[in-house]
Protein backbone atom coordinates (compact mmCIF):
# COMPACT_ATOMS: atom_id res chain seq x y z
CA UNK A 1 0.00 0.00 0.00
CA UNK A 2 1.40 3.39 -1.01
CA UNK A 3 1.15 6.11 1.62
CA UNK A 4 0.25 9.59 0.47
CA UNK A 5 2.44 12.43 1.75
CA UNK A 6 -0.09 13.73 4.23
CA UNK A 7 0.55 15.24 7.66
CA UNK A 8 0.41 12.78 10.55
CA UNK A 9 -1.80 13.21 13.58
CA UNK A 10 -0.02 14.10 16.84
CA UNK A 11 1.96 11.14 18.04
CA UNK A 12 3.70 9.94 21.23
CA UNK A 13 6.15 12.83 21.62
CA UNK A 14 3.39 15.44 21.85
CA UNK A 15 1.92 14.02 25.04
CA UNK A 16 3.27 14.80 28.50
CA UNK A 17 4.56 11.57 30.06
CA UNK A 18 1.93 10.21 32.43
CA UNK A 19 2.03 7.56 35.14
CA UNK A 20 -0.76 5.54 33.52
CA UNK A 21 0.88 5.34 30.10
CA UNK A 22 4.29 4.63 31.69
CA UNK A 23 2.84 1.74 33.70
CA UNK A 24 0.98 0.41 30.67
CA UNK A 25 4.06 0.19 28.45
CA UNK A 26 6.30 -1.15 31.22
CA UNK A 27 3.69 -3.87 31.85
CA UNK A 28 4.12 -4.93 28.25
CA UNK A 29 7.94 -4.64 28.34
CA UNK A 30 8.19 -6.67 31.56
CA UNK A 31 5.95 -9.31 29.96
CA UNK A 32 8.25 -9.62 26.95
CA UNK A 33 11.32 -9.77 29.24
CA UNK A 34 9.67 -12.49 31.33
CA UNK A 35 8.93 -14.48 28.17
CA UNK A 36 12.65 -14.34 27.35
CA UNK A 37 13.32 -15.22 31.01
CA UNK A 38 11.35 -18.45 30.57
CA UNK A 39 14.49 -19.71 28.83
CA UNK A 40 16.24 -19.45 32.21
CA UNK A 41 13.47 -21.39 33.97
CA UNK A 42 13.70 -24.05 31.27
CA UNK A 43 17.49 -24.21 31.57
CA UNK A 44 17.26 -24.53 35.37
CA UNK A 45 14.72 -27.36 35.25
CA UNK A 46 16.59 -29.20 32.46
CA UNK A 47 19.85 -28.83 34.42
CA UNK A 48 18.19 -30.21 37.55
CA UNK A 49 16.81 -33.18 35.60
CA UNK A 50 20.20 -33.77 33.99
CA UNK A 51 21.89 -34.51 37.33
CA UNK A 52 24.35 -32.86 39.76
CA UNK A 53 26.95 -32.08 37.07
CA UNK A 54 24.65 -30.19 34.73
CA UNK A 55 23.06 -28.48 37.74
CA UNK A 56 26.53 -27.30 38.84
CA UNK A 57 26.93 -25.49 35.50
CA UNK A 58 23.59 -23.72 35.92
CA UNK A 59 24.29 -23.00 39.58
CA UNK A 60 27.67 -21.45 38.70
CA UNK A 61 25.93 -19.08 36.27
CA UNK A 62 23.11 -18.25 38.71
CA UNK A 63 25.64 -17.50 41.46
CA UNK A 64 27.90 -15.32 39.28
CA UNK A 65 27.66 -11.53 39.25
CA UNK A 66 25.93 -11.47 35.84
CA UNK A 67 23.64 -14.32 36.86
CA UNK A 68 22.65 -12.53 40.06
CA UNK A 69 21.90 -9.31 38.16
CA UNK A 70 19.81 -11.23 35.62
CA UNK A 71 17.90 -13.10 38.33
CA UNK A 72 17.26 -9.93 40.35
CA UNK A 73 16.11 -8.18 37.17
CA UNK A 74 13.88 -11.15 36.45
CA UNK A 75 12.44 -10.97 39.96
CA UNK A 76 11.71 -7.25 39.54
CA UNK A 77 10.09 -7.91 36.13
CA UNK A 78 7.99 -10.73 37.64
CA UNK A 79 6.80 -8.63 40.60
CA UNK A 80 6.19 -5.64 38.31
CA UNK A 81 4.14 -7.70 35.84
CA UNK A 82 2.32 -9.33 38.80
CA UNK A 83 1.29 -5.98 40.32
CA UNK A 84 0.48 -4.29 36.99
CA UNK A 85 -1.45 -7.43 36.00
CA UNK A 86 -3.69 -7.04 39.07
CA UNK A 87 -4.17 -3.37 38.10
CA UNK A 88 -5.24 -4.38 34.58
CA UNK A 89 -7.61 -7.05 35.91
CA UNK A 90 -9.24 -4.36 38.09
CA UNK A 91 -9.48 -2.01 35.07
CA UNK A 92 -11.05 -4.89 33.08
CA UNK A 93 -14.00 -4.82 35.47
CA UNK A 94 -14.61 -1.17 34.51
CA UNK A 95 -13.41 0.25 37.84
CA UNK A 96 -10.85 2.99 38.51
CA UNK A 97 -11.07 4.80 35.18
CA UNK A 98 -11.65 8.14 36.87
CA UNK A 99 -8.42 10.17 36.71
CA UNK A 100 -7.58 10.38 40.42
CA UNK A 101 -8.52 6.73 40.99
CA UNK A 102 -6.42 5.58 38.03
CA UNK A 103 -3.49 7.54 39.47
CA UNK A 104 -3.90 6.02 42.93
CA UNK A 105 -4.33 2.52 41.53
CA UNK A 106 -1.09 2.93 39.58
CA UNK A 107 0.78 4.14 42.66
CA UNK A 108 -0.55 1.24 44.71
CA UNK A 109 0.53 -1.23 42.02
CA UNK A 110 4.05 0.27 41.97
CA UNK A 111 4.24 0.04 45.76
CA UNK A 112 3.15 -3.60 45.66
CA UNK A 113 5.78 -4.40 43.01
CA UNK A 114 8.51 -2.74 45.08
CA UNK A 115 7.58 -4.34 48.39
CA UNK A 116 7.17 -7.77 46.79
CA UNK A 117 10.58 -7.56 45.08
CA UNK A 118 12.24 -6.50 48.35
CA UNK A 119 10.63 -9.25 50.44
CA UNK A 120 11.57 -12.02 48.01
CA UNK A 121 15.09 -10.62 47.43
CA UNK A 122 15.71 -10.45 51.18
CA UNK A 123 14.18 -13.92 51.66
CA UNK A 124 16.42 -15.46 49.01
CA UNK A 125 19.70 -13.65 49.72
CA UNK A 126 19.58 -13.08 53.47
Amino acid sequence: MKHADRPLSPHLQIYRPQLTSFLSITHRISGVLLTIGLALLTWGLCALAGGPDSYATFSAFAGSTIGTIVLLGGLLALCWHFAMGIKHLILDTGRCFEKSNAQRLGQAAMALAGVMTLIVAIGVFA
Partner: protein
Amino acid sequence: MTDKTDSGAYQYQSPLGRARGLGSAKSGTHHWMAQRATAVANLFLTLWLLWSATCLLPGATHETLTEFIARPVHAVLLILTALSFFYHAALGVQVVIEDYVHDEGRKTIKLLVTRGLLFFGAVACVFSILKIAL
Protein backbone atom coordinates in the same frame (compact mmCIF):
# COMPACT_ATOMS: atom_id res chain seq x y z
CA MET B 1 -20.95 -4.01 -7.12
CA THR B 2 -17.35 -3.04 -7.55
CA ASP B 3 -15.19 -1.66 -4.78
CA LYS B 4 -11.68 -0.43 -4.93
CA THR B 5 -9.47 -2.05 -2.30
CA ASP B 6 -6.40 -0.56 -0.62
CA SER B 7 -4.12 -2.31 -3.09
CA GLY B 8 -5.98 -0.71 -5.96
CA ALA B 9 -7.54 -3.95 -7.22
CA TYR B 10 -11.24 -4.18 -7.95
CA GLN B 11 -13.32 -6.72 -6.09
CA TYR B 12 -16.73 -7.91 -7.21
CA GLN B 13 -18.17 -7.91 -3.70
CA SER B 14 -20.86 -6.00 -1.88
CA PRO B 15 -19.67 -3.68 0.92
CA LEU B 16 -21.28 -6.05 3.44
CA GLY B 17 -19.54 -9.06 1.94
CA ARG B 18 -16.25 -7.25 1.97
CA ALA B 19 -16.73 -6.13 5.58
CA ARG B 20 -17.50 -9.71 6.58
CA GLY B 21 -14.33 -10.92 4.93
CA LEU B 22 -12.20 -8.27 6.59
CA GLY B 23 -13.77 -8.44 9.99
CA SER B 24 -13.52 -10.47 13.15
CA ALA B 25 -11.67 -13.75 13.03
CA LYS B 26 -14.26 -14.97 15.59
CA SER B 27 -11.55 -16.02 18.01
CA GLY B 28 -10.67 -12.73 19.71
CA THR B 29 -12.91 -13.25 22.73
CA HIS B 30 -11.43 -16.65 23.44
CA HIS B 31 -7.92 -15.19 23.24
CA TRP B 32 -8.89 -12.34 25.58
CA MET B 33 -10.53 -14.69 28.10
CA ALA B 34 -7.64 -17.17 28.00
CA GLN B 35 -5.21 -14.31 28.68
CA ARG B 36 -7.22 -13.26 31.76
CA ALA B 37 -7.84 -16.80 33.00
CA THR B 38 -4.14 -17.66 32.86
CA ALA B 39 -3.37 -14.25 34.44
CA VAL B 40 -5.48 -15.10 37.49
CA ALA B 41 -3.95 -18.59 37.67
CA ASN B 42 -0.48 -17.04 37.40
CA LEU B 43 -1.18 -14.78 40.39
CA PHE B 44 -1.61 -17.81 42.67
CA LEU B 45 1.12 -19.88 41.01
CA THR B 46 3.61 -16.98 41.23
CA LEU B 47 2.91 -16.54 44.94
CA TRP B 48 3.50 -20.27 45.46
CA LEU B 49 6.66 -20.21 43.34
CA LEU B 50 8.16 -17.17 45.11
CA TRP B 51 7.21 -18.54 48.52
CA SER B 52 8.90 -21.84 47.66
CA ALA B 53 11.96 -19.99 46.34
CA THR B 54 12.41 -18.00 49.55
CA CYS B 55 12.08 -21.21 51.60
CA LEU B 56 14.41 -23.29 49.40
CA LEU B 57 17.00 -21.12 47.77
CA PRO B 58 19.24 -20.02 50.63
CA GLY B 59 21.76 -22.86 50.54
CA ALA B 60 19.91 -24.92 47.91
CA THR B 61 21.68 -27.96 46.48
CA HIS B 62 20.83 -30.36 43.67
CA GLU B 63 19.61 -32.81 46.31
CA THR B 64 17.28 -30.45 48.19
CA LEU B 65 15.79 -29.05 44.98
CA THR B 66 15.10 -32.44 43.37
CA GLU B 67 13.65 -33.73 46.64
CA PHE B 68 11.32 -30.73 46.71
CA ILE B 69 10.19 -31.22 43.09
CA ALA B 70 9.78 -34.99 43.58
CA ARG B 71 6.93 -34.50 46.05
CA PRO B 72 3.70 -35.10 44.08
CA VAL B 73 1.95 -31.87 45.10
CA HIS B 74 5.01 -29.82 44.19
CA ALA B 75 5.50 -31.63 40.87
CA VAL B 76 1.86 -31.04 39.90
CA LEU B 77 1.98 -27.37 40.94
CA LEU B 78 5.24 -26.84 39.08
CA ILE B 79 3.85 -28.43 35.88
CA LEU B 80 0.76 -26.24 36.17
CA THR B 81 2.98 -23.20 36.69
CA ALA B 82 5.07 -24.01 33.62
CA LEU B 83 2.01 -24.61 31.42
CA SER B 84 0.18 -21.50 32.62
CA PHE B 85 3.29 -19.28 32.30
CA PHE B 86 4.11 -20.51 28.79
CA TYR B 87 0.51 -20.27 27.57
CA HIS B 88 0.12 -16.76 29.03
CA ALA B 89 3.45 -15.74 27.45
CA ALA B 90 2.43 -17.15 24.04
CA LEU B 91 -0.86 -15.21 24.12
CA GLY B 92 0.85 -11.99 25.23
CA VAL B 93 3.75 -12.09 22.77
CA GLN B 94 1.25 -12.80 19.97
CA VAL B 95 -0.52 -9.51 20.72
CA VAL B 96 2.78 -7.61 20.87
CA ILE B 97 3.84 -9.01 17.48
CA GLU B 98 0.45 -8.30 15.93
CA ASP B 99 0.63 -4.72 17.22
CA TYR B 100 4.12 -3.86 16.03
CA VAL B 101 4.88 -6.05 12.99
CA HIS B 102 2.87 -4.88 9.99
CA ASP B 103 4.46 -6.87 7.17
CA GLU B 104 2.24 -9.94 6.73
CA GLY B 105 5.07 -12.32 5.85
CA ARG B 106 7.32 -11.25 8.71
CA LYS B 107 4.40 -11.26 11.11
CA THR B 108 3.51 -14.85 10.22
CA ILE B 109 7.11 -16.03 10.57
CA LYS B 110 7.58 -14.27 13.93
CA LEU B 111 4.31 -15.67 15.27
CA LEU B 112 5.22 -19.20 14.18
CA VAL B 113 8.79 -19.01 15.52
CA THR B 114 7.85 -17.60 18.94
CA ARG B 115 4.99 -20.05 19.31
CA GLY B 116 7.28 -22.92 18.33
CA LEU B 117 9.99 -21.85 20.80
CA LEU B 118 7.46 -21.47 23.61
CA PHE B 119 5.98 -24.90 22.83
CA PHE B 120 9.49 -26.35 22.92
CA GLY B 121 10.23 -24.69 26.26
CA ALA B 122 6.96 -25.83 27.81
CA VAL B 123 7.53 -29.46 26.79
CA ALA B 124 11.16 -29.32 28.00
CA CYS B 125 10.00 -28.00 31.41
CA VAL B 126 7.25 -30.59 31.83
CA PHE B 127 9.58 -33.41 30.72
CA SER B 128 12.27 -32.26 33.19
CA ILE B 129 9.81 -32.03 36.09
CA LEU B 130 8.47 -35.53 35.31
CA LYS B 131 11.98 -36.93 35.00
CA ILE B 132 12.89 -35.52 38.42
CA ALA B 133 9.63 -36.60 40.04
CA LEU B 134 9.24 -40.13 38.67
